[in-house]
């Protein structure tokens, strides 16, 4: 839907950038993902987009790709305002988004995937006879241009990641894309493949295609991008030509909010080591991770999204099978082949996404609360429902969970209260080790402070707490000690969190 804008549009025509986004806003329950983002992209420009949190990044990409609609803001392409109502509009306007998860039909070959939905037809128009010869000819040209040597008839599921990415790019080019958005395109590539991809990007850039290159890899950004733009907390924090920004500048931009009074202080002297993890491995995600958490200690595990923090917690909890590594709790080695075993050993996990992993949304507060506690709350296979109701009501009042009753479906509670229900599950279980994965994500400020106080009082009881968080002020405010991960490895430890700075963490996170 291209609509020429009268006065502003006319003025814009002269030096109109290829893409201009102004004041883009979007929020979700509990999160303001984008609060008025501005972005410009010139023809042939490669723009590095460095985004501090995951929600903002994916939302911005989805808005460009037409998968989501902004609540406010305007988008101009070559000076014409564009109303993107759906993916077709984006495609027609020449925008193509390549997500980390590719959108290819696994059973179809490269040729069919490239022309999917834009098949070349012959004969009297719309009968749908595919002109295979012409398609094949175009595919061969494209593949040659992208230096891809693949058989266009081999099903895409048999191609390597780099080859699939090439097919995605080819698909975008066939659709006539002038703006190409790539999300962490090198995350799963080998060094030579990265080189090849960069060659393709340079070629496209020379041909006038504007490219938004979303990445955290500073070396790559320096090599390939003309300009870098940083988003944090859903807003712009800065942009500059790549040549003019150093590593230190970027880190300063990524580091945001100062410490405030929202973090209640506690006075605990950590005791003996309780949870000890040695040489934990699983593929590329987690490589030789070792750590120990002491009694009464809050250990923060941080790093950028995708650095292996969540995966580490899941391995400790037995949610995924570890390939190697030893876990001991209070000196006893644990087999931990399943969450069931971990729970029995006294480990609780507050998962990253409470809606898909933490709660059964259709069940009541009481039944969710009871789930890990059934062994204690049942006799001979019968649930002692009175006992369960009493215990649940008690936790509802101590954690101040705002719910009409223990029989309300958790679906209807707010994010913060849902999170407290997950917490209540584990507190009632009497876990000795608590693994918190982003404990305050999507939680309002009031509930956040309550959760922090809870974490502190658990530590004061001598429990071992391992917390994963992307929120640097939270990490600094809550942790006694900080471990930073990058690409599946622990890249550094900050033993004294009280004297750490956000810059120190970011330095380690970018490795």
């Amino acid at each position, binding site marked *: 839907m291209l609509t020429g804008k009268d006065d502003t549009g006319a003025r814009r025509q002269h030096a109109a950038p290829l893409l201009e986004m102004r004041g883009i806003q979007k929020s979700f329950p509990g999160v303001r993902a984008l609060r008025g983002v501005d972005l410009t992209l010139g023809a042939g420009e490669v723009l590095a987009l460095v985004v501090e949190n995951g929600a903002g990044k994916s939302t911005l990409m989805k808005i460009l790709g037409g998968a989501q609609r902004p609540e406010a803001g305007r988008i101009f392409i070559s000076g014409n305002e564009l109303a993107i109502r759906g993916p077709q509009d984006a495609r027609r306007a020449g925008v193509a988004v390549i997500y980390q998860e590719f959108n290819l039909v696994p059973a179809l070959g490269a040729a069919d995937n490239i022309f999917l939905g834009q098949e070349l037809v012959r004969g009297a128009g719309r009968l749908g006879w595919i002109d295979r010869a012409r398609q094949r000819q175009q595919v061969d040209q494209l593949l040659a241009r992208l230096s891809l040597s693949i058989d266009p008839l081999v099903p895409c599921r048999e191609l390597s990641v780099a080859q699939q990415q090439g097919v995605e790019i080819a698909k975008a080019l066939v659709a006539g894309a002038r703006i190409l958005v790539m999300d962490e395109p090198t995350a799963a590539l080998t060094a030579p493949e990265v080189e090849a991809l960069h060659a393709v990007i340079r070629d496209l850039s020379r041909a006038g295609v504007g490219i938004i290159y979303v990445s955290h890899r500073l070396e790559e950004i320096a090599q390939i991008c003309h300009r870098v733009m940083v988003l944090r907390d859903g807003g712009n924090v800065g942009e500059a030509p790549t040549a003019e920004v150093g590593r230190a500048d970027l880190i300063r931009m990524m580091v945001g909010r100062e410490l405030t009074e929202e973090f209640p202080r506690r006075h605990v002297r950590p005791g003996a080591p309780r949870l000890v993890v040695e040489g934990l491995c699983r593929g590329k995600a987690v490589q030789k991770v070792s750590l120990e958490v002491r009694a009464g200690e809050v250990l923060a595990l941080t790093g950028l999204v995708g650095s292996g923090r969540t995966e580490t917690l899941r391995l400790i909890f037995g949610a995924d099978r570890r390939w190697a590594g030893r876990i001991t709790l209070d000196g006893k080695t644990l087999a931990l082949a399943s969450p069931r075993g971990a729970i029995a050993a006294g480990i609780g996990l507050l998962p990253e996404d409470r809606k898909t992993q933490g709660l059964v949304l259709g069940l009541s507060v009481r039944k969710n609360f009871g*789930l890990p506690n059934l062994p204690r709350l049942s006799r001979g296979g019968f649930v002692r429902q009175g006992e369960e109701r009493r215990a649940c009501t008690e936790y509802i009042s101590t954690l101040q969970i705002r719910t009409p009753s223990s029989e309300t479906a958790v679906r209807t509670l707010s994010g913060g209260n849902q999170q407290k229900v997950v917490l209540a599950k584990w507190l009632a279980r009497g876990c000795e080790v608590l693994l918190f994965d982003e404990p305050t994500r999507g939680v309002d400020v009031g509930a956040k402070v309550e959760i922090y106080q809870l974490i502190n009082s658990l530590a004061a009881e001598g429990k071992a707490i391992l917390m994963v968080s992307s929120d640097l002020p939270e990490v600094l405010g809550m942790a006694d000690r900080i471990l930073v991960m990058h690409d599946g490895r622990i890249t550094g430890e900050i033993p004294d969190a009280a004297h750490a700075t956000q810059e120190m963490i970011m330095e380690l996170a970018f490795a």
Partner: protein
Amino acid sequence: MLWVLLGLCLLFTVLTWSEQHPSGPAAADALAADILRQCGKAPRVLVAVREQPDDAAFAARVATRLAAAGATVVEVVKGEPRDARGALERAAAGGGLECVAVNSASAEWLVFADLARDYPALATTKLLQPKSYFWPNFLKRENLLNIANQISVIAILAIGMTMVIITGGIDLSVGSLIALASVTAAVLVRDLAGGVEAGPTGMLLAGLGGIAVAAAAGAFSGLMIVCFGIPPFIATLAMMLVAGGTASLLARGESVYQLPDSFMWLGRGADFLGLPNAVVLMLLLYFVAHVVMTRMTLGRHLLALGGNREAARLSGVPVSAVVLLAYVLSGALAGLGGVVMASQLKSGSPNYGQMYELYTIAAVVVGGTSLAGGEGSMLGTLVGALIIAVIQNGMNLVGIESYTQRVVLGAVILAAVLLDRLRHRNWGG
């Protein structure tokens, strides 16, 4: 869904509202008393009915009662109108008659249409029959028991199916497992327990054997689903073919009917308050299943893992074991259904249970259980099964033939689920 059931019951109550002609012993006693009251102390009475066991029993009872009270029963005619004519002529020639006792069928005979004109000697003779009244055929006791009895097998299967569907799965093999279990039990009785001479212990063990085979089949499907990630639809579809074929092989394609009469105790007996044993069994199982689903950890685990498998697993629910158990129970209950059916029909046959998986799934879904899993109740399923039974029975009573019945049944199932969907619309978004 309870309202749908009640609405259907009301509908068929109205549609089957009709004149009832009692014909039992109570009706015979009432008629005898009526005759004595209307025709004086010692009347001369002719009893005339059709030649049928029920009618004959009625006639005999009326005659005995009258004789005991001092009346003279000149003749009891069991046969056709011309037999009655002969009797009337003899009576007219003889001592006359005060009364002819008939039932609703023989009252229609033309011989009795105008006694005063045809037989002047019998001008004062009264024609008396039991008093009729109005009552819906649908609500007659035997009809209601019939509904419960007919649905008992499907309702028993639906218990296991509800558990499986709550886990987010499906079990297409239950119909074939009915056949397999019925044949297994019948063959065991025939070959090992002594055939028509079999004793209760032998029959009990044979029945348990049938159930065990079906449970093993369910366990096999469950293992395929849990250990190898085969979609439930495929795993149980395969089991449906395997079990059906095995039943035919085992029975050599024929019915196995070398069973003692006492084998029918489970399916046709009625030992408790006049309720058929199969219905008592069904109600008992529903009670247990309801308790399991609402009070026991197993029920809680089923609902939790059906609602969110990952969250349940991360909360320590033994997901694989519970899913496996659901398929084992579904198989075992299908086996029990097969044994009940063999008992009802006094034979085991590889043809039993065809399409039962679909009626069972329909009962579960009409009962409000979500095919997406995580939601459902046993009482809902029982209501769903009864809805299907009432529709079928009601249409039979109203006289709708079977092809039309299927069309209506399909439409009603769709409508019931649609109604439920609309009610829950604010949920799905």
